[in-house]
């Protein structure tokens, strides 16, 4: 309980995120040794992979909240699910950008269909953009919440199935020649990676909380205006 206290209050969470992000960036960019095979460009790994994992986490959180909405019918889960998916889409686009830069740095090309991770994120990016289109096309109300929740649940089912499909499609799109991760990570590299992962996860959670707080202030203001007029 006391350990979680800074995470519960928004300023505490922000301070913790800042601290952890500072440490993580120092470990990733300065302390961690340079990779013997890939050289300095391997350092992109410390930001790209945590962002990708965080995006999955956000999508899963959004689907979990969607499930809670469908099971319990509490309206607040609708907003939470939407905000989590919004965060996931932001981190998903960042995964595409950093992954693209990494592909250019290590293979000399901006895009490759043989990187399963990148292709999967492209599919997910399209899927969740459609989620927003759906959300903005429906009229506000409980039915919109439930419809979006169902679509969000489809998203988490799509992730493993697409990943499988994309892996299998390699056979006829392009032979697999690249392996992304180096075979081994030294101890200090692994520490840096863990710190980065924790920092990026906290950053996503912070942004999620900030956006949620903003949306709730919005809703409160709307009610206040109706009460006053």
């Amino acid at each position, binding site marked *: 309980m006391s350990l979680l206290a800074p995470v519960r209050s928004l300023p505490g969470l922000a301070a913790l995120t800042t601290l952890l992000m500072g440490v993580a960036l120092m470990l990733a960019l300065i302390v961690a040794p340079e990779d013997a095979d890939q050289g300095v460009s391997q350092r992109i790994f410390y930001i790209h992979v945590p962002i990708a994992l965080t995006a999955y986490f956000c999508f899963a959180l959004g689907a979990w909240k969607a499930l809670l909405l*469908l099971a319990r019918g509490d309206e607040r889960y609708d907003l939470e699910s939407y905000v989590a998916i919004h965060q996931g889409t932001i981190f998903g686009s960042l995964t595409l950008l950093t992954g693209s830069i990494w592909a250019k740095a290590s293979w000399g090309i901006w895009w490759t269909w043989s990187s399963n991770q990148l292709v999967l994120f492209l*599919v*997910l990016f*399209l*899927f969740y*953009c*459609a989620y927003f*289109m*759906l959300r903005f*096309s*429906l009229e506000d109300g409980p*039915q919109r919440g*439930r*419809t979006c*929740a*169902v*679509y969000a*649940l*489809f998203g988490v*089912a*799509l992730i493993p*199935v*697409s990943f*499988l*499909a*994309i892996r*299998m*499609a390699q*056979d*006829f799109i392009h032979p697999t020649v690249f392996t992304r991760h180096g075979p081994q990570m030294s101890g200090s590299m692994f520490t840096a990676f863990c710190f980065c992962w924790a920092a990026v996860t906290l950053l996503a959670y912070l942004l999620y909380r900030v956006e949620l707080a903003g949306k709730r202030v919005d809703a409160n203001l709307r009610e206040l205006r109706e009460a006053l007029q």
Partner: protein
Amino acid sequence: MSYVADVAVLARKDLKVELRARDTLPAMLLFVLSTLVVFRFALSKETGDDAAYGLLWIAIVFTALLGLSRAWVPEHEHGVLDGLLLAPCDRSAIWLGKSLATLAFLLAAQAVALPIFALFFAPLDATALAGVLLADIGICAVGSLVAAMAAAGRARELLLPLLLLPLTIPLVVGGVGAAISPEEGRFLLLLALYDGIFAVLSWASFEFVVTE
């Protein structure tokens, strides 16, 4: 058993409506034929059969989209959906009936299109046909749910392809793989897995999409 009877009645209702109005099926037939003819000119002479199978899948997905975009129109135009929701049947039976009716339309369109594809482009073997059938089931199962979502929105015809296309990517991979890959069994398995997961998900969640 009454569930099966409900589904049969609902599917038969859609087929009857189509037989009277003839809105959807002729359009799907003509669309898939003209798409195949257009593709004939889009391919160069040196292109192998593999590219033709890819184009066949584009034609199938877009034909299904065309049929699905019309799927819930009668329900919304005449307020049928409200009546169906009041009827003493399980809500998921409405979804299942619609999926079966759409599947029937799609199969009818393919019964004409696939022989023509085999004639114009490349031969189709049994596994390719099995892939088509499995993918049809997946498209219709997911499609009738997503079409119901899109039908409630403002720009329904515009929304449906956006919602459905990302969901069909595994189906296209499985279908093309079943046609061209030497290890076609794995791709049929992928299609069956997709059908299982998404059919159960659509079946369970349809009620939430249509309930006011």
